[in-house]
């Protein structure tokens, strides 16, 4: 034995869950849950997302949309996180967070425009400072740190909330962003939707750590795990983290444990690498029925409510799909027009050539 050995640091990770898989309260619920109208709005947000995803996949399967990433099964993460934000906060979504974008005013039509192949889908006016979705996995985390740095420098009581998946936590950018957020005590919340699969690589092969939340510990920020199929728990955890960040308390990493019920994207076939039994079992824990069961048990939800919300969401999504399918393409020269604030002289001839070729 060397001279002395002592424990110089020790840590634990706590997990929050409010409802069990059947929607029964596991204990006293957070205060906001007494407002069943608000819970009904969360429910509607999740249903809208699910109906949208279903429609988008159908459009892709019939050749009317490009590759698309459904969020089936993890709607509670997106809706729970976004609903805890204030309008003036900034969302930095990954490519599976349309539910969060819709909550903040992004429209289903914009989402279809994007996956249908037009940059205009990321021009959303509803949340003008939110980032567009991020395709290169994990590269969005440093952006959130930069946004939060701007808030801190300007002494604004605003928070950046950035989302990503379990695979993204293996990226260097994730670790680097956590380190910066810790050292600079920044108002940023990292929400990881741990859906157990990074395309075909399961969580167990992604990282040997017991939880992903504990990655916060190494950066000196708060880390917590939450049942990601429980929208009440997700909202509660994000609300606390956002509040803490807004008051100058620094960053939090929230690992929301959920499950990707469907393929990685429409270009993937998950049957190649995982058992049907696992997927079937996951349906017993999914978030939409869970909240509905709770609301029904509270006497706050009945068949007419369900029918009304389904009809509303379907109408919204159908109208969005029609508008998307009717949208005129941009002119070919659009690829030049926002490349720089003003197109450099050296590119004028290329732009003219593209226009001539398109018109020809």
């Amino acid at each position, binding site marked *: 034995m060397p001279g002395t050995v002592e424990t110089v640091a020790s840590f634990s990770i706590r997990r929050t869950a409010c409802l069990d898989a059947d929607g029964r309260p596991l204990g006293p619920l957070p205060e906001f849950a007494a407002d069943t109208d608000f819970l009904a709005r969360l429910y509607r947000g999740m249903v809208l997302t699910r109906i949208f995803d279903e429609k988008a996949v159908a459009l892709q399967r019939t050749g009317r949309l490009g590759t698309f990433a459904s969020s089936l099964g993890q709607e509670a993460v997106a809706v729970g996180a976004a609903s805890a934000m204030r309008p003036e906060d900034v969302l930095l979504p990954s490519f599976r967070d349309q539910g969060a974008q819709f909550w903040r005013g992004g429209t289903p039509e914009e989402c279809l425009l994007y996956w249908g192949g037009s940059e205009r889908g*990321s021009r959303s006016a509803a949340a003008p400072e939110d980032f567009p979705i991020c395709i290169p996995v994990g590269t969005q985390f440093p*952006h959130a740190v*930069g*946004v939060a740095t701007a808030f801190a420098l300007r002494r604004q009581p605003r928070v950046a909330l950035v989302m990503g998946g379990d695979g993204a936590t293996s990226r260097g950018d994730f670790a*680097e*962003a956590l380190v*910066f957020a810790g050292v600079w005590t920044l108002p940023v919340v990292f929400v990881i939707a741990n859906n157990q699969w990074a395309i075909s690589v399961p969580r167990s092969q992604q990282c040997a750590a017991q939880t992903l939340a504990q990655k916060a510990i190494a950066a000196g920020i708060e880390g917590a795990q939450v049942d990601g199929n429980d929208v009440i728990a997700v909202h509660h955890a994000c609300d606390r983290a956002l509040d803490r960040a807004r008051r100058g308390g620094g960053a939090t990493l929230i690992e929301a444990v959920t499950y990707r019920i469907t393929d990685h994207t429409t270009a993937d076939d998950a049957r190649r690498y995982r058992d049907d039994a696992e997927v079937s079992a996951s349906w017993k824990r999914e978030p939409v029925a869970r909240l509905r069961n709770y609301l029904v048990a509270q006497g706050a939800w009945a068949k007419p409510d369900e029918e009304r919300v389904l009809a509303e969401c379907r109408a919204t999504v159908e109208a969005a799909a029609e508008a998307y399918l009717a949208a005129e393409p941009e002119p070919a020269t659009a690829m030049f*027009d926002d490349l720089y*604030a003003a197109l450099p*002289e050296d590119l004028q001839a290329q732009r003219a050539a593209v226009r001539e070729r398109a018109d020809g």
Partner: protein
Amino acid sequence: MGELTMVEAVAMALARALDEDPDVVLLGEDIGRDGGVFRATAGLLDRFGADRVRDTPLAESAIAGVSVGMAAQGLRPVCEIQFMGFVYPALDQMLSHAARLRNRTRGRLSCPMVLRAPYGGGIHAPEHHSESTEALFAHIPGLRVVIPSSPVRAYGLLLAAIRDPDPVVFLEPKRIYRAVREEVADDGAALPLDRCAVLCRGSDVTLVSWGAMLTETLDAADALSAEDGIEAEVIDVCTLKPLDAATIRASVERTGRCVIVHEAARTGGFGAEIAARLAETALVSLLAPVVRVTAPDTVVPLLKLERHYMPAAADIVAAVRRTMEYA
């Protein structure tokens, strides 16, 4: 006002930018108390405070990625990567995000950031400290790539880069950080970001270069004039992207000959782009093939062999003489 080295001119431009625009924020490794390993930020922490002159953790991808987020919020981050040899983790953020943000949001968000990095060889530095990989950045649509070759141009081009509404990669040839002093007026005047500088006029051959290699190029021009009576026109490209092709073409149309000089490896170097432009637009004016004087396509050697790697004035003189042999 006074006789300044290039690195002092960089510091003066940074101070000016911090002073005139509260949105300008510097970030990077060792840029605060230490003033940067080359002292490009010397004195700025004391003058502008730790909020605006920010020492970062040692993580280049995040330095660039955090700058993207700051810029999207309307700040004007100027990040320093300590040596170009360490810029590659940041390449992903520059290519995948900084260069695309305006376009992919159709103008809703933008990225007015500057990434500064000392680059190039010739200072007997350790491994990974001598590369010239400017062509990697010049290949990326949506970026600007700027390289000064004198204290005056460092000041004016850096101010222009910081004020520009789009992302700029600003590469500083560290071999000439302290090689010359010249009068640099702290008048806040920026230089254009799309114009070559014609350093001397001549009618026999056009020499095109950028960064530290202008030293050898100008020496070669002097030798050619003195020894051969050949009058070379010397062009400092200044902004590789966007390229001021018109100035280079106009010069070659007059001289009929062109030698391109760069310190970077030959294949896919930026000289190839300039040569291709001339082949496309000025072929009928050419009296001789366009010639490149460059480093070989090898890994930059450690310092014992470095002088065999770096192009020298004699190489440029020899190339011009070969060019003159054509009618």
